[in-house]
C-alpha cells in the first residue's frame, strides 16, 4: 500500500505537469462557465454539459491513457529494477493517470458552477454529472491500459483506442437502432437491455438521465431500461455495471502486466 502511494504521487506530479491536462481543465472551465452564465435555466446547462461529457471524457481518457502508458515504458523499466512488486506499480500508475484526469474534469465543472450556477437547487444534479464523468474517466483509462498493454506497437494501440471510442460513442447507437429495425416483429427489449449494458457510454447516459427523468432524451435503450427496471433499480443496475466496466478491463490489463517482459 505504501508503495502504491509513492508511485501514485510521482505519477500525479508528472501528469499534472503535462500540457494536455491543463488544456483539458481549461476546456471544461470555459465550456461550463459559458453554459452556466449564458443559459438562464440551470438544468438545461447541466444537460448540455452531460452531452459534452459523454463524448469528450471517453475520448480524452482513452487517448491520454494509451499514450501515457506507452510513454511510461522507461519509467516502468526503471521501476522494475527497484524493489517493487508489479501490483503496486500497476495500480500506482493507473490511479496516477485516472485521478488527475478526474480532478481536472471535476474542478473544470465545479468552479464555474459555484460561481454562476444555481447551487441551492441543482447541486444534487451536478453531483450526479460529476459522478458519471468520473466513472467514465476510470472506465476509459482502464480500457486504454488494456489496449496499450496488449499492443506493443504504439500506432496500432492508438488506432485501436480511437476505434473503441468511435464504436462506443457513435457507431453503437446505430447498431442498436439497426437491430431494433431488423427485428421489429420480435420482442427485442430484453436483448436491448443486454446491449446497453455492454456499452459504458450508453450506461453513463442512462445512469444520469434516469435520475433526470426526461425520457425523450434517453433514447431507445434508456426508455427500455426505465420500463424494465424502474428508476431506482435502473440506477443501481447501471451503476453496478459501470463499476464492473472499471474492474474488468483493469483486471485483464493487470494480468497482462504481470506476465509482460520488459
Amino acid at each position, binding site marked *: 500500500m505504501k508503495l502504491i502511494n509513492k508511485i501514485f504521487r510521482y505519477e500525479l506530479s*508528472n501528469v499534472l*505537469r503535462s500540457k494536455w491536462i491543463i488544456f483539458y481543465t481549461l476546456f471544461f472551465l470555459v465550456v461550463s462557465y459559458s453554459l452556466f452564465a449564458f443559459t438562464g435555466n440551470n438544468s438545461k446547462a447541466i444537460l448540455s454539459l452531460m452531452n459534452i461529457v459523454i463524448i469528450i471524457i471517453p475520448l480524452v481518457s482513452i487517448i491520454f491513457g494509451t499514450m501515457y502508458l506507452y510513454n511510461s515504458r*522507461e519509467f516502468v*523499466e526503471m521501476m522494475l529494477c*527497484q524493489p517493487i512488486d508489479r501490483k503496486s506499480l500497476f495500480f500506482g500508475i493507473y490511479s496516477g493517470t485516472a485521478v488527475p484526469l478526474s480532478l481536472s474534469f471535476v474542478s473544470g465543472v465545479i468552479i464555474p458552477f459555484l460561481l454562476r450556477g444555481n447551487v441551492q437547487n441543482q447541486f444534487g444534479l451536478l453531483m450526479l454529472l460529476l459522478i458519471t464523468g468520473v466513472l467514465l474517466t476510470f472506465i476509459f483509462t482502464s480500457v486504454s491500459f488494456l489496449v496499450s498493454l496488449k499492443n506493443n506497437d504504439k500506432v496500432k494501440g492508438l488506432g485501436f483506442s480511437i476505434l473503441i471510442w468511435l464504436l462506443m460513442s457513435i457507431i453503437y447507437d446505430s447498431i442498436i437502432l439497426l437491430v431494433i429495425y431488423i427485428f421489429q416483429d420480435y420482442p427485442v427489449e430484453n436483448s436491448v437491455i443486454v446491449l446497453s449494458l455492454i456499452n459504458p457510454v450508453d450506461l453513463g447516459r442512462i445512469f444520469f438521465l434516469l435520475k433526470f427523468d426526461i425520457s425523450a432524451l434517453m433514447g431507445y435503450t434508456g426508455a427500455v431500461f426505465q420500463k424494465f427496471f424502474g428508476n431506482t433499480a435502473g440506477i443501481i443496475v447501471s451503476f453496478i455495471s459501470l463499476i464492473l466496466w472499471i474492474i474488468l478491463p483493469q483486471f485483464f490489463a493487470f494480468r497482462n502486466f504481470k506476465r*509482460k517482459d520488459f
Partner: protein
Amino acid sequence: MIRIENIEKKFGNVTALRKIDLEIRSGKVTAIVGPNGSGKTTLIKSILGLVKPDSGKIFVDGKFVNGDYSYKRHIGYMPQIARYPENLKVNEVISMIKDLRNSDSEINPELLEAFNLYKEMNKPFRTLSGGTRQKVSVLIAFMFDPQILIFDEPTSGLDPVSSSYFKDLVRKEKQKGKTIILTSHIMSEIQELSDSIVFLLDGKIHFHGSIDNLLAEQEEDKLERAIARMMTEVSNETYK
C-alpha cells in the same frame, strides 16, 4: 550467490534461452559472453525479474525470484540501454529511487567528480547524451552498496577515462566480496576483470569455467581468439 535452474524463454517463435543451468558464485566477477542475440540480456533480465521465463527457477541468495521482490534491494543493475523518464531531472530520478528504497544513501561524491556529472544533475534526461546516461546508471547501480552488481555492456558508451575508472570500481567491489555479473564484447576488458566466463550461443551455455581453462582447452593465448574459435566450432557442429 545466484542459482539458475532449467530456465527456458521463448519470444514468439524465437527461443532466447534453452534449458539453462548456471551457478554464479559470490566474490567473483562472472562474465557472460556470446554474439549478439545469444540471450545474454534475456538471462540478466530474468535474474532481475524484468523478463518472466517460461519455465525453470532462479534463486538469488537462496530466495526464489518469482515470488518475493525484496531481493532486488540487494541488486545494483546497469542496463545496456539506459532508459529513464525523459522529462525528469537526474536529481529527481535519484531521489525517487532513494525514496522507493527507503534509503538515505548518498551519491558517492568521488564518483560524481570522476564522471564529471556535477553540471548534469539538474538537467532533464532528454537533454543527456548516451554516455552521460550510462554514467548516471553507474551512479545508481553503486549507490545503495548492493551485494550483487549486474552490468550489461557497461563500457560500450563510456569514454576511456570513465571506462578505466569504472573498471577500477569493479575491482574494488570484487575485493569486498560482491557478486558481479558482466557482459561485454570487449574481450580485453573481460580478460582484465573477470574470474569466470560463461559462453552463451543461441540460448545455450557452451562453456562455463575460468578463463585459464578456456584458454587451455582451446589452445590459444588470447581470449578473443579462443572465443572466436569456440564460436566457429559450435556453428560448424550445428551445420553438420
